[in-house]
């Protein structure tokens, strides 16, 4: 990295970004956003790596996904391409990451035993 400190600048964007975290995507749209084939997404769902937010257990046409599914899909692709982890390995990594996230939350917000009846 040879970007010198003299070339640091600050840009303030006045444009207001309005993300819509409630947005739902169908399988096609999700696959396009994630840059993978819809069939691969279906495969991940069958293997339990990701779940539809709506329509789980129903037909593909009824599945709906949100940005957190998209985020997970991109993560799966990164783990596979960057680290060469196979699908079963990715499933294990995702599960462990979820557990670590839960543990870290407990560390920052320990459940307060004295209030539990």
């Amino acid at each position, binding site marked *: 990295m040879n970007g010198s400190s003299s070339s640091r600048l*600050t*840009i303030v964007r006045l444009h207001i970004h*309005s993300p819509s975290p409630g947005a739902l995507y169908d399988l096609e749209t999700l696959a396009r956003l994630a840059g993978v084939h819809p069939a691969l997404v279906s495969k991940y769902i069958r293997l339990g790596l990701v779940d539809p937010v709506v329509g789980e257990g129903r037909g593909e046409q009824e599945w709906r996904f949100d940005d957190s599914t998209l985020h997970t899909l991109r993560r799966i692709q990164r783990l596979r391409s960057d680290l060469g982890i196979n699908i079963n390995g990715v499933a294990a*990594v995702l599960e462990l990451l979820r557990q670590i996230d839960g543990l870290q939350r407990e560390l920052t917000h320990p459940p*307060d035993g004295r209030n539990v009846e």
Partner: protein
Amino acid sequence: MAVEFKDYYEILGVPRTASQDDIHRAFRKLALKHHPDVAKDKTNAEERFKEINEANEVLSDPEKRKKYDALGANWKQGEEFRPPPDWQERYGEQAWSEGAPTEFEFHFGGTGFSDFFENLFGMHGGGVGSSHRGADGGEAFTQHGRDVEADLMVTLEEALRGSTRAVSLQRLVPCEKCGGTGRINQKICPECNGGRRVARTETYQVKIPAGVYRGQLLRLSGQGERGAGDGQSGDLFLRIRFAKHPDYRAENDDLYYDLDVAPWDAVLGTTVSIPLLDGQANLKIPAGARNGQRFRLRGKGVPRRGGGRGDLFAVLHIQVPERVGEHERALWEQLRRESASSVKG
């Protein structure tokens, strides 16, 4: 152009005599540890991972390694790197000299590789992303920009009501002055000093919608790392974190409020006012309330995934007066004599 020399052996933590197997093992180990998705320390993971990748890219390829070894023998980490004589013969000194016309074009930046790497292997540096031959026979390189992730700390009130917030992120972005080429009219770009990327603090105005839950992702499309070639930019994912609230403890979607009451209020019962995230609620404390007893105010917690809100629990804490006046003491003493309570001191 002088760039910082990178000691790829040191980056991978292997001796210069390491076998291909050693290098592969070291890479696997470090890549797993520093991959941005799994790293414990996320702040530097992205840069560190790129460095590890780059070291592996060179050392795991016998041809690149040979070239690197020939060059690297005389440099130490941190020293400026200038090309040795035999490289000048092959590619022309102009490639590294300021201002001179160049026949060795670094025609692409943004592979995620360092300038050092680009100088050495820029012409042959495919191998990540998808590269294909361009129409002119040169190597055109297309790579999607990586997603960028950051935490966004919001107050519980903001989560409930929504707000517009300024979010600042420091990141390396392609230099706009030279279009990320490092050069203007074959001269070193004064803005990025030929580095092609500049550190920039970008401030985004982000509208946080009402009802965000903890861990929810706000996706700012196309605001991640810039893609290379025709590649699309990545997205920026802002992960909602809840700031600690002065009045409540948050546990999952539920809130806990410590409600201090006087002993007589606990004995006789009373009505108290409880502050909510969005207003006030009157809570009836029944006579004979116990210390630690919880009172549930349904749906007054924080937004939860899938809609709705968690609950708010007021937790009763009977507070004993620290000091009592003479008259008050007399009343307590009378109480002690006359109380039918089975609790004995």
